[in-house]
């Protein structure tokens, strides 16, 4: 009986600890998870199935706020977008690639207010276009996120202009 009680208490303790770890993520961890989810959605492995592509296009809008501003140098892609239009544009861009991989590192997070975060990071994009060209580009990025219903959503994403011609 005592052994059963001890085993039961141990199980409850483990469950509480797991719940605390899972549910009480710090804001930094949640932001990192958001960015990690974003990179997963953008990345594409060689021979990606249509179902995976559809799944990614369905969950990608969930990382962005109702209106998100993208600033990408002088690119025509710069502008204000709804999460759905970002997703459809991303699906179109991904279709040009045989494989593509996006990684963020050197991430620095600051909180100007409790429900806003500014993230500076290095984005490393590698990939192979369907016509064979290789892409290997690293750029400094600045992302601004807003906390909405406990979820961090990107509302501003810009590629930093380090070299100005």
């Amino acid at each position, binding site marked *: 009986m005592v052994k059963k009680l001890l085993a039961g208490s141990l199980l409850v303790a483990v469950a509480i600890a797991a719940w605390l770890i899972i549910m009480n993520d710090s804001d930094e961890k949640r932001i990192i998870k958001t960015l990690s989810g974003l990179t997963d959605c953008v990345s594409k492995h060689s021979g990606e199935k249509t179902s995976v592509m559809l799944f990614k296009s369905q969950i990608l809008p969930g990382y962005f706020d109702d209106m998100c501003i993208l600033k990408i140098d002088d690119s025509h892609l710069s502008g204000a977008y709804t999460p759905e239009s970002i997703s459809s544009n991303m699906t179109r861009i991904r279709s040009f690639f045989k494989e593509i991989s996006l990684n963020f*590192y*050197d991430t620095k997070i600051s909180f100007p207010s409790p429900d806003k975060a500014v993230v500076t*990071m*290095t*984005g*490393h994009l590698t990939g192979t276009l369907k016509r064979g060209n290789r892409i290997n580009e*690293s*750029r*400094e990025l600045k992302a601004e996120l807003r906390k909405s219903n406990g979820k961090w959503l990107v509302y501003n994403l810009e590629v930093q202009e*380090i*070299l*100005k*011609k």
Partner: protein
Amino acid sequence: MVKVVFSENHWIQSNHHMEFKEIKDKLFDAWAEYKKTAHKRSFWLPDLSLFGVIRMATIAGATLLFFSYICRPAFINGGSMKPTYSTTGLNFCWKPAFWFKEPRRGQVVVAKYAGERIMLLKRIVALAGDTVEFKNGILLVNGVEQEEPYVKYREAWNLPERRVEKGNVYLVGDNRGMPINAHKFGQISTQRIIGVPLW
């Protein structure tokens, strides 16, 4: 005849006439003598004594500091500085170069481009306040054509005149044999310049 060797200078030799105890004593003496001088030979694999651990930590810390803050290793990947620097290779960024000096025109520098890991290797062609312009591949600084003996490949680059802002310098690679849009160049904050290549 039995010869027991601990090292070049520590060995004993016995013959059948020696008593077992005598051999044993000689062995112990030789081992003790060997242990006394062992630390001299164990520089690369020191004993796990307190002194050994402190010494290893000091060496590791000094190495880390040296290669992080003084002489940072960097792999060159790209041909924008050809032929001065080859497309690939290992170099080191010498950081003390700008501890007490300001960047000069004509100097090849290492500048932070993305985060802490991606850096640019370029030449400073103009300083803050200067004007920069390209006309048919010729660089003009403050309206004066520049002689650039390090430029071996040249395409007809054209770039309208612009002024280098305060706190910035203008960086261009030595390889002008590529289309202007494919070459990363332009003005950058001096705060991003972290050093010069060691060679």
